[in-house]
């Protein structure tokens, strides 16, 4: 697999406080890379280092197969679209005038700008001043500015922040379309649900450290889902299993955590049957990415 972004031991400290700690980022070409982490975990700082907007305290970044630093960034930034923190846009100018500034700066042609504007579905709003835009419109204009250069890599920092559910869905759909068109997208969020369904690869950050990086499937297999047992005497079963497995009662179902092998599962069932409790259901919990994420970030000392 070839990676469009690779970092090794990427680190940033502000005044002795390490806010990004030894990241080995691997973003496969053509993926939608969901970069997750709670507020303050270092997502924006990492993205700024990938763009060489701030200087790493340690480590290296390679983008599009080339080292990214102050001397190479001017040229590399021509193929990287980005939207960092709040969306840009001169409030006193119209959307079209803002786009023209980007166009002139990067030497783009009209077709590229039109395409970007149509992609974010803003073509009806370009005559309005940005001052009159809603937050969602500003986000989309910012994405259009990043897209106009027809980037190979798009880096979007919390593009769904502050949007309503319809706006969030629209951005998700947009990311999917871009990925289908061959653009590699790195998108950050502090909410799992916002990138959950679009991301093909996930990187999870907690307090500046990468606590997980891999596919969704990898993530699920990294955590053991709870075991759910339905039986003839749930109350007695719960008290029996409370000590060993932290059993909890949910309605008439007993929930056990940390039963991670088939042998252990069989052992639990045998124990219940030996006590005269009839077991008529044993299954694994439907695990949401949310619960896995919560478990991981809690484990990371959140």
């Amino acid at each position, binding site marked *: 697999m070839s990676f469009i972004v690779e970092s090794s031991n990427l680190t940033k400290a502000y005044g002795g406080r390490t806010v990004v700690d030894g990241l080995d980022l691997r973003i496969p070409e053509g993926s939608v890379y969901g970069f997750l982490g709670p507020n303050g975990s270092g997502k924006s700082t990492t993205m*700024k280092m990938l*763009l060489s*907007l*701030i*200087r790493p305290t340690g480590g290296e970044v390679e983008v599009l197969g080339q080292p990214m630093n102050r001397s190479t*960034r*001017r*040229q590399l*930034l*021509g193929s*990287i679209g*980005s939207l*960092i*923190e*709040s*969306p*840009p*846009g*001169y*409030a*006193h*100018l119209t959307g079209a*005038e803002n786009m*023209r*500034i*980007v166009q*002139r*700066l*990067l*030497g783009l042609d009209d077709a590229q700008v039109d395409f970007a504007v149509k992609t974010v579905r803003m073509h009806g709003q370009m005559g309005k*001043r*940005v001052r009159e835009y809603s937050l969602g419109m500003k986000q989309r204009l910012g994405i259009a*500015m*990043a897209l106009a250069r027809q980037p190979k890599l798009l880096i979007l920092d919390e593009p769904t922040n502050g949007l309503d559910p319809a706006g969030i869905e629209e951005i998700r759909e947009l990311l999917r379309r871009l990925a289908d068109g061959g653009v590699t997208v790195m998108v950050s969020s502090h909410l799992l649900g916002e990138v959950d369904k679009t991301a093909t690869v996930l990187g999870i950050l907690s307090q500046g450290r990468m606590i997980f990086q891999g596919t969704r499937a990898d993530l699920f297999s990294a955590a053991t889902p709870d075991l759910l047992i339905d039986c003839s005497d749930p109350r007695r079963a719960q008290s029996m299993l409370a000590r060993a497995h932290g059993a909890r009662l949910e309605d008439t179902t007993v929930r056990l955590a940390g039963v991670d092998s088939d042998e252990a599962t069989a052992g639990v069932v045998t124990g219940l049957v030996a006590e005269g409790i009839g077991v008529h259901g044993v299954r694994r919990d439907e695990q949401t990415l949310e619960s896995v994420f919560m478990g991981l970030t809690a484990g990371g000392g959140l």
Partner: protein
Amino acid sequence: MSAIVVNEFARMRHLHVVLLVAVLFAVVTGIGLYAAVFNPDFDRTSASSWNTLLMGMGSGFTLAAPLLLAVVASRLVDAEHQGGGWLMSATSGVTPGGLCRAKLLALGLLVAGATVLVSAAFAAVGLAVGIDAPWPAGRWLGLTACLLVVSLALLALHVVLAARVENQLVGIGLGLLGAVVALISTAVPTWIAHLTPWGYYALSAAAGYVDGQLAGFAPSYLNIGGLSAVAAAIFALFTRSFDRQEV
């Protein structure tokens, strides 16, 4: 480079920057001509009329330029603070220092245009009223150039300040203070006028009263050359440091 400067003109739309420069032209011309024509020494049969016009032009800049230059610089730079423009440009490879240099160049072109127009307007008035003495070309162009250099130095100062200090009231306040300093500098010993950039409007003077007599003299070219060198060095130093700054 040229695209970056053209973009500055594009950013000026709806910011009333061009209007403010036109106001600068109108106020300087208004104040200056008023001061010149109502000067008791204004007498179209003597060379002193040209001197009153030269003085008037200087007074116009002294009174109007410090504040108006502060305002135009602040408006153009503040647009970057407000619109996330520093980061947006950085993600396209243009550093904050580069943006500041482009702003100085774009504003400088406008201010240069206004200064030349002011100068031409004063000369036209002198010729129109039929001043008999020949037009003092050397001192006239010298004064025009000196006033422009001082204005550019002030613009550079305000561009850097507006970029560095987000609260634009600071720059505007300094411009207001500058107007007062510029005015005081016309009436104090010249060594004091050397101490602040605003004082150099007084040092640009190509005519004035010496022992109660209106006389023409050469502007302090050397000192104003010194100001331009210092201003250019400081501007380069600051914008270079903006280039290295993290956004």
